[in-house]
C-alpha cells in the first residue's frame, strides 16, 4: 500500500542526541508522570466508575488474549499434533500425543529449509537496497541540496500516490525486459531486491531526519577538509541510528510479509520465499505438516517484533505494513 503515507511520528536527531537512551525514554509509557487521561484519579475512586471500567478492561484483555495470542498458540499446538488429534479435539491447546517430528518432517518433506533460506535472502537484499537508496538520496536532498533537489524530491513523492498494484503489470513487463539493457530479471532475486528500493516513503523519513542535523557539523568538517563522502559515512550515518532502525524494521517486516510481487516474478520454486511456497504446498499436504510450515514462517517476524516491541509499539513509524 504505497498510495498514502500513514501518520508517523518521526524521530529527530536534535531530540535524540543519544540513541540508546532516547529509545528507552521514547518507548516508556509515560505512566508515572502522566497527569491524567480521560479518567481522573477521582473517577477511579468512585465505585460505579471503577467497577464499570474494570469489567470493560477485563473483557478487553480476555478478548485480546483470545484473538492475539490464542490463534498463535493454537498454531504451535497444531504444528506438533497428529492429524487425527486435530480433527478430534480441535479446540484444545495441548497436543495429545505431542508429535515433535512434525517440524522435522515438514522441514524435510516440504523443503521448508530452502524456502526459509530464500525468504531470508530476499529480505536481506531488499533491506540492503532500501537502506542504500534511502540514505544516499536523503543525504543528497537534505545535506548536499543541489539546485535540482526539489524537483527530484517531488518526483520521488509523486510515486507515493500511485499504488503499487496499479503499476503491477507494467512493472512486471519492465522486469522481463529492462529498457535499454535487454536483461530479464524474472526468476532472479534482483527482481524483488531492486524494485524494493524504489520506495519513496523511506526517502521521506530519512530526509526529514537528516534535515534536522545541525549544519554547523558539516561546515566544521568541510573546513577540516572532509569531502561529502566522509561527511556521509563518518558524521551523518553514525548520527542517524534511530532513523536507520526505523527504516530497517519497516523494510524487513514488509519484505517478510510480501506476497503478490514475489508470486509474480519468482515462478521457479527454487527461488521462492515461504510466503509464495506455502499456498502452493497447502494444496496437497497433510494439515499438520502445513501448519508446522506456517509456524516456521511466523517465528522469525514474531521474534523480531518481540525484540523490538518497545520501538515498534511506542508508535515509531510503523506504517505501510498492512499488505
Amino acid at each position, binding site marked *: 500500500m504505497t498510495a498514502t503515507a500513514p501518520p508517523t511520528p518521526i524521530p529527530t536527531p536534535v531530540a535524540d542526541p543519544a540513541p540508546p537512551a532516547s529509545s528507552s525514554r521514547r518507548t516508556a509509557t509515560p505512566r508515572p508522570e502522566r497527569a491524567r487521561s480521560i479518567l481522573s484519579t477521582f473517577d477511579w475512586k468512585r465505585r460505579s466508575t471503577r467497577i464499570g471500567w474494570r469489567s470493560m478492561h477485563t473483557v478487553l484483555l480476555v478478548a485480546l488474549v483470545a484473538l492475539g495470542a490464542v490463534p498463535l498458540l493454537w498454531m504451535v499446538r497444531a504444528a506438533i499434533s497428529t492429524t487425527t488429534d486435530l480433527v478430534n479435539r480441535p479446540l484444545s491447546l495441548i497436543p495429545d500425543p505431542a508429535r515433535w517430528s512434525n517440524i522435522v518432517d515438514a522441514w524435510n518433506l516440504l523443503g521448508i529449509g530452502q524456502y526459509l533460506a530464500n525468504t531470508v535472502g530476499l529480505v536481506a537484499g531488499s533491506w540492503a537496497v532500501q537502506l542504500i537508496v534511502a540514505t544516499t538520496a536523503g543525504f543528497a536532498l537534505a545535506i548536499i541540496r543541489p539546485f535540482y533537489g526539489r524537483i527530484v524530491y517531488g518526483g520521488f513523492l509523486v510515486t507515493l500516490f500511485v499504488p503499487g498494484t496499479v503499476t503491477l503489470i507494467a512493472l512486471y513487463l519492465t522486469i522481463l525486459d529492462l529498457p535499454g539493457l535487454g536483461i530479464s530479471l524474472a526468476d532472479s532475486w534482483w527482481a524483488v531486491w531492486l524494485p524494493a528500493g524504489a520506495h519513496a516513503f523511506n526517502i521521506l523519513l530519512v530526509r526529514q531526519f537528516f534535515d534536522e542535523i545541525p549544519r554547523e557539523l558539516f561546515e566544521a568538517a568541510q573546513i577540516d577538509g572532509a569531502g561529502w563522502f566522509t561527511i556521509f559515512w563518518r558524521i551523518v550515518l553514525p548520527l542517524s541510528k534511530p532513523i536507520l532502525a526505523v527504516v530497517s524494521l519497516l523494510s524487513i517486516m514488509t519484505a517478510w510479509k510480501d506476497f503478490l510481487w514475489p508470486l509474480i516474478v519468482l515462478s521457479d520454486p527454487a527461488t521462492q520465499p515461504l510466503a509464495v511456497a*506455502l499456498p502452493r504446498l497447502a494444496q496437497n499436504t497433510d494439515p499438520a505438516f502445513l*501448519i508446522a510450515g506456517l509456524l516456521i514462517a511466523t517465528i522469525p517476524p514474531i521474534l523480531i517484533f518481540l525484540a523490538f*516491541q518497545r520501538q515498534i509499539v511506542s508508535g515509531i513509524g510503523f506504517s505501510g505494513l498492512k499488505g
Partner: protein
Amino acid sequence: MTIAPPGLRDAPAPRVAEATAPPPARRRGRGSARRRAAVAGAVFLLPSLVLFGYFAWWPIGRSVVLAFQRTNLVSPAEWVGTANFDALFADPLLPTAALNTLWFSVLSLAIGLPIPLLCAVLISELRRGGTLARVLSYLPVVVPPVVSVLLWKTFFNPGEGGVVNSLLGLVGIGPLPWLQSPELAMPSLVIVATWSGAGTAILIYLAALSGVPSEQYEAAELDGASVWQRVRFVTLPRLRGVILVLLLLQIIGALQVFTEPYVMTDGGPANATVTILLMIYRYAFLFGNYGVATALSVLLAGVLVVVSAVYLRVTRSWSTS
C-alpha cells in the same frame, strides 16, 4: 508525540542555493560551490534515480501506454485504441468484481473502524498491562498475511476439525459453511483481514490519544462532564483527523484486496469473492492479456486518485487546524 502527515509538512527549503554555499573560510564564489553541489548531489542520487527510473517512473508511464495496446510479449505491441476498455466492459465479471470489492470495503470499514478505536480508548485507560495489551493487539499484524490466511482457512474448515464451527457449536450455532457459501465467504475474508490489520490502527489511535492534552480533560471534568461526555466532546473531536485519515487509508487498502481472496477462496464460491485485483491478476497471468489487465489497473488508479485527493484535502485541513 506529534503526528503530521509526512510529505505535507516538509516543503523543501526555498533557499537551496544559499544553503549549499561553502563556509566563509573557503569562499570561492557561489557559482563553483553550486556546481560542485550539483555534481556531488548527482553522485549520491544515482542509486535512487536509477531504481526509481526503472521501477517507479517508467512503469507508471508505461501503464498509461499499455492500457491502449495489445501485447503478448512475443510480437511487438500494437495500438488498439480503446479495445482493451471495450473488452473489459463487455466482461460480465467486472460488475461482480466491482460490487464484491465494494462490499469487502464496506464490511471491513464497518468492523475495522469502530473496533480499533474502542480498543485504543480502553487500552489508553489501562492502569496496568498497557504494554501487554499493545503487544497482544499488534501480534496478528506481525504474522505474514499468507500465514494468517492459511491459518484462518484451517479455522473455517467446515469438517469436524473446524475450529470456528466447533466454538460456535459450544453455544449451539451452526455448523456454518463459511468459505463454501456465497453469502458467508466475503464476511469470512473480512474477519481475516480485520484480524491481521486492526493492530496497526490501534497503535495509531493510541499515539493520537496520548497527544490529547490532559488539561482539556481536567477542564471538562471541572465543568461537570461525565466520562462519556469527555469521550464524546474532548477525545473524539481531537481524534477526528486521525480517524478520517485511517478511514481513507483503509478504503484505499480495501479496494486493493488480493491475498485473502486469492489464497483463501480463489474468487469462489460462484465468483462471490472475485475482487478487482484478482481480476487484474487473472487477466495478466492466467490469460496473458496484459493490455486488458493494465486497462483495469488504470481504472482502479482513477478511483484511488479520487480517494487520495479527498485524503489530501482532509489531511491538509487537519494539519493546519
